[in-house]
């Protein structure tokens, strides 16, 4: 492969990986922005989303939807709604009673929710890998010796489109405005007559729905699901959110794409094999945090009063 082809290949890989990271990172970032919680359960919600859509895909297989793109999209939408509601329920049961409690208790609760989610999926699936069978072919386009499947292209475009829709939702609607306002000052929003509980629930819905969509896409792309698959991407998405500036919506997207690209190019650096790629991305995180502690898009804020 020539250098040019390697670059194209890695850009494609990186964008796809990065858009998954971005979608999951958005959920982390939105929740953090509003309730200042590192939602550890988010990675598991992503995993549950994958399994949920797989269940529906197998249901749709024999109907007119089939297990091609129509079936996948339908399964993804259903899973987004169901998992979004799951997110709302989690917020209502586990996080809402602790909103005024110490931050660390909230964090531990999130870890508890994460444990519950992945252990229940483990019990249901028996801890085994599940094949994500789709009716998609392996057609694609080739540029030189680089081969890109249609699936890869469509998934990347879909992920970016979802991010764009979210961006419009956050910037153009009243709900989005309320979310941004709450992330600035919750108590003040209450005084201004914003129904904060409703908006927080909505944030959880949107965040977890996005994670579910990412879970579906990951299932389609990798072809298998596992109860522990959320963990690795959870850490990465988290890193992506922090790189971009946690709590900032465009930051999460930027961070995700950047991390995906850095990671796929990181594997190409001589003497740093693919087994070191995680070390590489964490080093990037630490370097960014040392030089720009609020993340790439974060504004300098003073914590001191």
């Amino acid at each position, binding site marked *: 492969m020539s250098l040019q082809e390697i670059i194209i290949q890695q850009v494609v890989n990186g964008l796809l990986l990065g858009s998954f990271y971005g979608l999951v990172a958005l959920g982390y970032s939105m929740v*953090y922005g509003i309730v*200042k919680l*590192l939602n550890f359960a988010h990675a598991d919600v992503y995993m549950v989303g994958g399994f949920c859509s797989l269940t529906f895909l197998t249901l749709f297989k024999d109907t007119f939807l089939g297990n091609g793109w129509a079936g996948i999209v339908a399964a993804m939408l259903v899973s987004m709604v169901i998992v979004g509601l799951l997110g709302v329920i989690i917020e209502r*049961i*586990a996080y809402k*009673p*602790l909103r*005024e*409690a*110490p*931050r*660390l*208790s*909230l*964090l*531990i*609760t999130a*870890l*508890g*929710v*994460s*444990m*519950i989610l992945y*252990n*229940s999926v*483990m*019990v249901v699936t028996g*801890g085994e890998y599940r094949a994500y069978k789709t009716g998609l072919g392996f057609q694609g386009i080739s540029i030189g010796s680089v081969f890109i499947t249609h699936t890869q292209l469509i998934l990347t475009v879909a992920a970016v489109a979802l991010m764009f829709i979210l961006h419009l939702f956050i910037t153009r609607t009243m709900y989005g405005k309320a979310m941004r306002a709450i992330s600035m000052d919750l*108590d003040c929003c209450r005084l201004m007559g914003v129904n904060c509980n409703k908006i927080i629930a909505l944030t959880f819905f949107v965040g977890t729905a996005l994670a579910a969509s990412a879970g579906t896409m990951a299932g389609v792309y990798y072809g298998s699901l596992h109860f522990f698959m959320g*963990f690795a991407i959870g*850490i990465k998405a*988290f*890193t992506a959110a*922090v790189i971009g500036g*946690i709590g900032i919506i465009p930051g999460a997207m930027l961070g995700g794409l950047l991390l995906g690209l850095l990671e796929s190019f990181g594997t190409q650096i001589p003497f740093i094999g693919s*087994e*070191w790629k*995680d*070390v590489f991305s*964490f*080093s990037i*995180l*630490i370097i960014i*945090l*040392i030089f720009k*502690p609020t993340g790439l898009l974060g504004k300098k804020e003073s*914590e*001191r*009063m």
Partner: protein
Amino acid sequence: MKENQIGLQTADTQTAAKQTNPLVRFVDKLYELFDNRKIRFSVIAVAVAVLLYLPMRTNMYFMEVMTNVWFYVVMCLGLNIIVGFAGLLSLGYAAFFAVGAYTTGILILRYGMSFWLTLPISALMAVIAGLAIGTPTLKLRSDYLAIVTLGFGEMTRLAARNMAITGRATGLVGISRPYFFGLHLYKINHYYYAFLALAIIAIFISYRLMDSRLGRAWKCIREDEDAAEAMGINVVAIRLYAFILGSVFGALAGSFMAIKMTAISPDSFLFTQSVNILLAVVLGGMGKIPGVILGAFVMVIFPEVFRGIGQYRMLIFGLVLLILMIYRPQGLWPERSGGGPIEEKTCKDEVI
């Protein structure tokens, strides 16, 4: 005593209503009894006697579990220095444990060094690791610190997995067991006593640290960083001390674990390990030494008790954890100073 009660009630309006639960009241009463000096000493005396006598009576399985408990107690007390005393959220504590275990493992296996000589080196490595993690990150906000420590924890594990000297994915196997004044340490009971001794030393040091000038400085920073700085406390340096001391605890526990297990692999230092230690600390009650010990007990014994229900046990553990945190967010045996340590605005409502 009275002051404590008031502190408890005002600590959290959310839980204040729940404090009327008779069970919770009873437990709180027990804790208050424990605050009495005489009762405390008699309880501790009985406990120590029982713990020393225990190996003569019980079976190997029980000893294995108890050894694990003491190991957890040491680790949790180490993390308690970082999280409980200094109020720094660390999600990568297993990294320090790994540093200790690998240092001892490598020195014994590759250089044939005596185990007891590896201990100071292991502590030294922990200091270096603590400095390496702490120096660049301690200026960060608490949440960023959490993710960076998580990153460092994973990096340590991945490095151990990919380097030749650490034995890559298989880890180190066949670490020889040491002699202690001519006594070959190979039985589980030997390790039970070794870890018990280590735990007692750790408890003693923790208490001494808590009451020391350094301990008060940590507490001061935890409660109000700006006020602490205004009082002339070098915030970054004092936090760094917490990191270093905490990591030394973890590394020494790791060294002992290396000879107990005789084999170490990168999979012993997963993120879940760090999380379990943090869970034990928070579950027990951050900053409160008896609370942390209780947390370590619960964390180790719970899965053993529920071994019968197989794969459902961690599911139930998650549920119990959730319920406990909702009804008692300060932990099982909270430090009664009102509010949690890692809380940025303790008096949120008063500010407005």
